[in-house]
């Protein structure tokens, strides 16, 4: 009842809901009494809630401090999107290059048999026997785990905020 009445008082109820609530207020004493009560609370807060005032020197203190500082330039003025796209392009090229290299190292002929192509017989060993490839993949796994940890930490912060 209270939630619906507050929506009505705040002017946020849908037109159909407003009609229903107005009828309930007119016909039901419990609704009418609660409405009057909440309306009074609303008016009290609206009329009597006061803001606190800082000291008289407040503005002067702020202006003295900012006289020593400069406005930082907008981030969009010193972050060049072309550079960002360039870096993204480099990494995408690296990734596709690695995929193409890996596909080239795979012995596809091992999968051919008289009964057709069998994926289980394709030889991937040459891809993973290369030391550089293994180091590259280990680095990527570690980076991936770090990103995943950061993502989970952010999510945990958001959960704590909401709770």
């Amino acid at each position, binding site marked *: 009842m209270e939630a619906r009445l507050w929506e009505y008082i705040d002017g946020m109820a849908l037109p159909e809901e407003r009609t229903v609530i107005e009828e309930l207020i007119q016909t039901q004493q419990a609704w009418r009494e609660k409405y009057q009560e*909440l309306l009074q*609370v609303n008016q009290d807060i609206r009329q*009597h809630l006061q*803001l606190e005032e800082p000291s008289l020197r407040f503005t002067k203190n*702020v202006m003295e401090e900012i006289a020593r500082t400069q406005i*930082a330039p907008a981030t969009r003025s010193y972050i060049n999107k072309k550079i960002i796209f360039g870096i993204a392009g480099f990494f995408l090229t690296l990734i596709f290059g690695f995929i193409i290299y890996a596909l080239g190292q795979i012995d596809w002929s091992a999968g051919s048999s008289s009964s057709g192509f069998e994926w289980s017989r394709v030889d991937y060993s040459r891809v993973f026997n290369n030391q550089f490839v293994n180091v590259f993949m280990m680095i990527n796994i570690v980076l991936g785990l770090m990103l995943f940890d950061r993502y989970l930490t952010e999510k945990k912060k958001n959960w704590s*905020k909401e709770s």
Partner: protein
Amino acid sequence: METGYPDIEIIQQVRSGNQQAYSQLVTRYQNFVFTIVLRYVTNREDAEELAQDVFIKAYKSLADFRGESKFSTWLYTITTTSCISFLRKKKLEVHSLDNEKVMAHAEQVQTGMRADQIEAKSRLAMVNKAIALLSPEDAQVITLFYKGEQSLEEIAQIMSMETNAVKVRLHRARQRLKDKMEKHFSQEVRDLY
């Protein structure tokens, strides 16, 4: 709010190099920022220092304000995040309704209130004393809604919450405020309601 130039015009003047114009924004919003800070940081000296820091931060980041939201919404967002960061640095818990510190504070205030309960006859005193007993989030959402001229969506942005969550919190905060008023000013509230 005060009359004078719109916020966006003042911001443009400041960006053009007229640093003194920023004092108009400070004067316009200082009471509100200070009030929000005081909801989180009960010590007035700390609150005033933090409120000053908020305006300084806002000034330094003025170039990044794009005008997609109201300046007040942007400023109050900086205020809220600054308060939470301040409390974390001081390793103080953000007050919650069940926090022992809040209850102990409430007890002290309650004792004081009972002593001058007879004197606190005005609704004004009742409302403002009762809101001081609410949790910072409850007090902030009520202050932003009634005094800050912020919509529920804007309040959600300021407090990093969903709009529906703000709606629920506002309803509950008003109920808690009413309960506080009844608990500490029981006779006066009965007379009023």
